[in-house]
């Protein structure tokens, strides 16, 4: 079992060894990026007239933009470094986070859930709960989400600071202030449009960074065959397969079996994250019509299927080049896989692109959380419970103010990230506590008409408590034996889901249901009165049909498993 270490300590120790040989060329590339980021903020400012423009881009963006932003909001640097770390540590099991842990949920969101989200015209995920359940569920989910968004945004900022310190030699506070200031500037100026546009830009820059790195990494270890041969020799057969050693009761580095992978990761964690995490769903809600909103996660699914190779290959290559990575015998931690390869392989020029890509990914990850936080805080908490019924311009001003407060709070919470060495594990832990109960409340509320007003709140509370008790009491106190943090996350997620569902059913049986007319467009099988929008010209083209896009993504993901299954 891996011992969690303090990343700050690690980074400080590595500062001299991982320092990148950057020169003026790389800094020019980085400088141009920062200028463009700010330019987008200033240019997008013109488009902000109403609160809907600021928080939801006026529900007017085309599907290709919202789709790439959807994948990009998830492709934060913590995900990139964390998934490379996962690969160096657990091997090809990483593919599960993509093919079973993302694609089915994204397709479900696009095809099944989006008509309810977009059609009901809600501005946020908690607002949907307000319509479907009551104020209790609404306030609890808004508060949990706002809290989680700031925590995760802090994780991003902290991770950025330690990576920038190690790679470029900037003091941590400089990195935090510079990145925080840029994110603050472009979101307060242009709102969600600015965040989304920057995410799309970041998507291409990060590809331009990871593709050369993966190609050179493969070349270095003798191609894919050379890579798998070396890893089989050093780490055993199961390291380069997706399912090897995942039988129930058998031992594998992930500490999870096929059942917890499929149920915990593939169903509960993944559906919770992709379908109810507002930082993601917000991108789809900003699309210009229902068809574009449905296509948002479906368009995102295709890059998502292949991005796993760009994070897994560097991780695996690092495991070959530094066989002791992540152990006490090596100075390198799992999270250092990508920075290490950048240092070893990239000449100035592409190195600048890679540094820019990483910084862009850190900022975009933070921006996604800040832009969803300000929306939930303003429309769900402030405008509904604190200062109600003011003119629209007031809420735009308040949105800008709360953005500044959110960024400041992120800086303050950054240090919380320091108790886990594997950043991904930290994020997954948070998601298992915040998204899983949200997901169970959604899924029961959307498919079971009888679920009562009160059941939402109690389901949310019970699910969150159960997941936390399982993780912090049963697992951390060694009452139940789960070999790794990731394995414990999967089990906590399942526990939270089951507890939430049971409590919802129990509460529903003893409390009054909502009337049918209050549930139009919110429960499966009903249609929202506002959904009679005519389909836009061109949206009936065969390649824009959600069902076709969705099923293609599912089949493609299933096919990808074949070479990793035997």
């Amino acid at each position, binding site marked *: 079992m891996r011992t969690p270490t303090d990343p700050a300590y690690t980074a400080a120790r590595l500062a001299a060894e991982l320092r990148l040989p950057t020169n003026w060329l790389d800094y020019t590339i980085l400088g141009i990026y920062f200028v463009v980021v700010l330019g987008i903020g200033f240019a997008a400012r013109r488009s902000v007239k*109403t609160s809907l423009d600021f928080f939801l881009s006026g529900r*007017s963006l085309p599907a290709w933009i919202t789709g790439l932003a959807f994948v990009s909001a998830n492709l934060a640097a913590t995900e990139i470094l964390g998934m490379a770390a996962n690969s160096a540590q657990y091997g090809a099991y990483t593919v599960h986070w993509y093919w079973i842990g993302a694609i089915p949920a994204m397709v479900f969101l696009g095809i099944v859930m989006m008509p309810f989200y977009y059609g009901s015209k809600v501005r946020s995920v908690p607002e949907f709960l307000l319509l479907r359940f009551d104020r209790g569920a609404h306030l609890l989910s808004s508060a949990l989400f706002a809290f989680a968004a700031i925590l995760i945004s802090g994780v991003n900022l902290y991770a950025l600071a330690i990576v920038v310190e190690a790679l470029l030699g900037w003091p941590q506070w400089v990195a935090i202030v510079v990145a925080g200031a840029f994110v603050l500037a472009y979101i307060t100026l242009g709102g969600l449009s600015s965040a989304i*546009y920057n995410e799309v*830009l970041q998507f291409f820059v990060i590809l*331009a960074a990871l593709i050369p790195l993966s190609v050179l990494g493969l070349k270095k270890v003798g191609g894919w065959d050379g890579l798998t041969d070396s890893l089989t020799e050093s780490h055993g057969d199961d390291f380069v397969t997706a399912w090897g050693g995942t039988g129930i009761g058998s031992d594998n580095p992930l500490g999870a079996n096929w059942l917890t992978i499929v149920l915990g990761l593939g169903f509960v964690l993944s559906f919770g994250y992709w379908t109810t995490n507002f930082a993601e769903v917000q991108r789809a809600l900003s699309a210009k*019509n229902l068809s574009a909103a449905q296509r948002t996660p479906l368009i995102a699914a295709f890059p998502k299927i292949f991005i796993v190779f760009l994070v897994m290959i560097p991780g695996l290559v690092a495991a070959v080049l530094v066989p002791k990575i992540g152990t006490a015998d090596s100075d390198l931690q799992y999270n250092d896989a990508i920075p290490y390869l950048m240092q070893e392989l990239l*000449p100035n020029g592409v190195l600048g*692109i890679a540094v820019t890509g990483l910084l862009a990914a850190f900022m975009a990850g933070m921006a996604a959380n800040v832009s969803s936080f300000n929306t939930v805080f303003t429309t769900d908490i402030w405008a509904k419970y604190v200062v109600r019924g003011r003119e*629209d311009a007031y809420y735009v001003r308040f949105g800008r103010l709360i953005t500044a407060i959110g960024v400041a709070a992120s800086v303050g919470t950054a240090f919380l990230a320091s108790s886990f060495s594997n950043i991904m594990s930290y994020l997954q832990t948070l998601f298992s506590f915040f998204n899983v109960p949200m997901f169970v409340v959604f899924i029961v509320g959307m498919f079971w008409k009888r679920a009562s007003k009160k059941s939402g709140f109690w389901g949310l509370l019970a699910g969150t408590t159960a997941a936390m008790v399982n993780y912090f009491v049963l697992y951390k106190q060694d009452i139940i034996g789960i070999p790794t943090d990731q394995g414990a996350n999967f089990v906590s997620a399942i526990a939270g889901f089951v507890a939430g569902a049971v409590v919802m059913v129990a509460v529903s049986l003893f409390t009054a249901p909502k009337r049918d007319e209050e549930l139009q467009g919110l429960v499966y099988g009903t249609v929202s009165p506002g959904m009679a929008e005519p389909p836009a010209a061109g949206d009936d083209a065969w390649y824009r049909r959600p069902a076709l896009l969705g099923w293609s993504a599912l089949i493609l993901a299933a096919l990808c498993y074949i070479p990793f299954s035997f």
Partner: protein
Amino acid sequence: MSEQFEPSESSERAERAERAEAAERLRRAGYSEADVQREVTELEEKSATAARIFDLRRIIGGLFVVYGVIVTIAGITDSDAEIDKAQGININLWTGLAMLALGIFFLAWLKLRPTAPVTPTLPPEALDGKPPRGE
């Protein structure tokens, strides 16, 4: 809400009255779907994003052409030591050319299918989703 309506036919009038009555009932019960629908629809009508937001393709295209040129030049002038570091591949040259191609692709797409003019209430539908390939 009902006073806003000026129905032209009696059946329509009855239908609308019924709908308004349902909305009123919901409003009395607390914040409801009808409130969200009304609020968001009003805001959508006043929204300026569709009309005023610039085309992102121009930014992606511009940035990647600039990056492509810079990195390609770096590739052309790379020394043997830099190429050796990158496993014998002139990675700057290849990455630079690929970025240049992506930048030109976005600019060409913008040129071939420019942003459609926006009608006041309806967002533009012409440009959507897919590159203009094969059309």
